């Protein structure tokens, strides 16, 4: 049989007449396809406009070239780049939530910003209106509390720089734009987001929202401790500026100055800060807390780690003066601060009181402006340098007497090379030699019997056994070398005739054979 008839060759049943069936099938398939395409859009996600500008501010403010020169001669630019603003952290906040103004069109001086206002933005987890009020409250109670928290506008930016206390704006840059120091990071992250997330989430509006909400926080949270120190050293690293700071006299009996208004309480007199206070940033740089951060390890301690209270209600803005009892750096609080988790947790233990006394801002490490500063007690509040003055004095005395010895005494001396002290003990303890004068302290090793040179002693009585406990006996000159075992003579009950031979010794023989001492 041929292949077609083989039982393994399955013969399919014949199809019905194809022309009659294919058309409706194709038509149905086409319909399904269209339906599919219209419903299942694979990569487009729509988003709402970030905020729809309910007051229409951007009608004018989005125009380019909206700028003028103010009374002080400064160019003030009021144009806002819409896309940049929507990408910023505050992109969801309508303009008037911060710039609270009443009239339209408005004067320049209206619309000042207060950082503690409530917005219309509802914080998603609790549904409450979002506000910076608790942070502002903590900030106002802190040592920086005289800083500006409201009445911000473009015009007073320059005034603010001259103010001694920092404002919110000084540390938290609120430009709608990405600040220069974060630009590189932002570009990398943006490209990544565009490439990966942008596969599904397309559209300018969506990307604006993403940039504002997510990317900003991502970059911000990657701020490491070194970066956070930079926000402090902006001011505290400027020593000329810090030198102008005046603080309340902490002295309890300082005279009080009556206030301008009679109803206000009198204030303490202000005194300039100490050298140690001014150069705190520099002395911190010398400590290991800073040196570890500088090489890129996060295990060091930044300014905030020590100066900010670590309890759970803290918002991180409450830096208090050291003298304030609640300050994180007050001596009473130091064991909690140093003992924060991940740091020196044993500092919480009351036995470690010595540990928290370490001076982290040791002014003695700081580069002195000139050498006479060593003698200025105002500059150095530590006794180490005074101690070194005394040591230098002793060094001077020592040096002069050494010079005297070198010129006057040394030329006449026997130039032997024995150590100043310790040679005899070395011989006795390490080499097991018998001591010259004193009896051996303990029989650690059986001392080798030293054979003295033959000596004529003028007065010799009957053979005597040396009483070893007598300090005046000089053993070597009397014993017969081979017959007397020094250890054996320790029998306390032996009857001995003791002879004090020191007188004889001095008259007749040298006590110490000179050849015995060898050089190294």
């Amino acid at each position, binding site marked *: 049989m041929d292949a077609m008839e083989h039982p393994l060759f399955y013969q399919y049943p014949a199809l019905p007449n194809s022309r009659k069936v294919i058309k409706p099938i194709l038509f149905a398939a086409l319909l399904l396809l269209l339906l599919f395409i219209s419903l299942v859009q694979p990569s487009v996600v729509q988003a709402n406009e970030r905020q729809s500008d309910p007051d229409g501010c951007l009608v004018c403010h989005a125009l380019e070239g909206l700028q003028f020169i103010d009374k002080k001669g400064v160019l003030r630019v009021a144009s806002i780049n819409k896309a940049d603003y929507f990408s910023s952290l505050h992109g969801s906040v309508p303009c008037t939530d911060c710039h609270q103004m009443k009239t339209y069109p408005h004067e320049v001086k209206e619309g000042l910003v207060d950082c503690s206002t409530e917005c219309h933005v509802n914080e998603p987890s609790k549904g409450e209106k979002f506000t910076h009020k608790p942070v502002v409250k903590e900030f106002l109670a802190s040592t920086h509390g005289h800083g500006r928290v409201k009445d911000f506008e473009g015009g007073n930016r320059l005034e603010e720089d001259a103010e001694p206390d920092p404002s919110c704006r000084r540390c938290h840059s609120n430009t709608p734009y990405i600040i220069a120091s974060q630009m590189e990071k932002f570009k990398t992250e943006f490209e990544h987001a565009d490439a990966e997330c942008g596969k599904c989430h397309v559209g300018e509006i969506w990307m604006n929202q993403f940039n504002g909400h997510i990317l900003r926080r991502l970059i911000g949270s990657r701020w490491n401790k070194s970066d956070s120190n930079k926000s402090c050293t902006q001011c505290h690293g400027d020593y000329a500026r810090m030198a102008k700071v005046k603080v309340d006299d902490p002295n309890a009996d300082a005279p009080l100055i009556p206030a301008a208004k009679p109803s206000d309480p009198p204030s303490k007199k202000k005194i300039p800060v100490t050298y140690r206070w001014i150069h705190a940033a520099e002395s911190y740089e010398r400590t290991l807390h800073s*040196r570890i951060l500088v090489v890129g390890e996060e295990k060091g301690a930044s300014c905030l780690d020590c100066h900010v209270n670590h309890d759970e209600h803290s918002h991180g803005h409450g830096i208090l003066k050291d003298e304030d009892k609640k300050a994180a750096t007050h001596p009473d609080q130091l064991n909690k601060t140093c003992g924060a988790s991940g740091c*020196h947790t044993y500092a919480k*233990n009351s036995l470690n009181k010595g540990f928290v006394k370490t001076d982290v801002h040791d002014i003695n*490490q700081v580069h002195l402006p000139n050498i006479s500063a060593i003698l200025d007690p105002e500059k150095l509040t530590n006794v180490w340098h005074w101690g070194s003055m005394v040591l230098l004095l002793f060094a001077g005395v020592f040096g002069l007497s050494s010079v005297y010895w070198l010129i006057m005494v040394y030329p006449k001396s026997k130039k032997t090379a024995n150590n100043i002290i310790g040679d005899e003990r070395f011989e006795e303890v390490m080499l097991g030699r018998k001591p010259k004068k004193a009896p051996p302290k303990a029989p650690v090793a*059986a001392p080798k019997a030293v054979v003295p040179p033959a000596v004529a002693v003028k007065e010799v009585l009957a053979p005597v056994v040396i009483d070893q406990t007598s300090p005046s006996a000089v053993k070597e000159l009397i014993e017969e070398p081979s017959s007397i075992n020094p250890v054996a003579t320790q029998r306390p009950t032996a009857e001995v005739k003791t002879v004090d031979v020191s007188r004889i010794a001095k008259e007749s023989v040298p006590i110490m054979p000179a050849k015995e001492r060898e050089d190294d």
Partner: protein
Amino acid sequence: MQAIDKLKAIPFVQKYRYGIILLSSMSFLGPLAFLPQLTGNSDLCGQLCMRRFYLYFPGMSFADLWTHVSVAYIGVIAFALIMLTTFFFGRIWCSFLCPVGGLAELGSRMLNDRWKIEFRSLPQVQIRYGYFGIYLVAMPLLGVSACTLCNFITIPRLIEALSGEYRGVVYILSSVGMVNLGLLLILGFFAHKGRAYCQFLCPIGAADGLMNRFGARFGFTHHIRVAKERCTGCNVCARACMCGAIKMVDKVATVEQLSCMSCHDCVDVCDWNAIEWTTASRNKEPKRIKKGVEIYPEPSWASLNIMPTPIPERNGIASRIHWGRMINGLIVSFVIVFVATTSAIHYLAL
């Protein structure tokens, strides 16, 4: 010239050792600080510190120990390497590599003996481990962590001061620096053979000594060993030993392994080849011997003389007190009791 002749007379191994010490000093210390910079950090404190991570602060937990170890991880790795090489080869870090001890020793060897103090006969073990015990547990309690009174950093800061870095000058002129400079002078330059700091105050040396003693128990490790039958008791090795580790006991040299630094000085001067840096004798009995060949026993290289001088007993009770061992016991029990007490206070109070 006399100086050149003196240099030529130095034994080969010592020349080699001095050369390595100089190379090591140039590599570890500023201004080059070549080796520290390989780890990305030329600051010898912080991550490279080998002396702080084993301190016991009262009430410390293992998490705290881990924090210390993870901050100083390079120092921990270096310390572990040192302990490992000491187990197999003796304290060669101390004698061949350490810039602090090595420079002090070289400085000392340049001075005449008449300026020096002979420290070698002091009870080294008791002083060293007594100080080590206090350093480990009592000083942290007093708030003196290893940094405040750091001796290690004296020589690096001195070199820094001499090369112009302000931090070095500040350190040397401070009271702490002056005291440490004084220690460097008394225990280094003006000490006979220059290693008194290493033997008395160095925590690495103390730990190394323990490891050396432990390693010497094993026959396959290289330590300084004495062949008793060859030793004539001539004293030359004891005089040459820069650590004062050799003591003549019954006219035979005995090496105190807690103090020995395997510097090879003793081997170089022994005319009788009775002391050597070697493993223990194997003395394997061959099952068969080739005809006409004589197999002699190896010298009995012994590193430890356990109980070199037995204390005489009367009715099973020692007739006198070995004060050295009593103090050793006191030191160990002090440390254990201290740690136990402070931990108990911490865990019961909190």
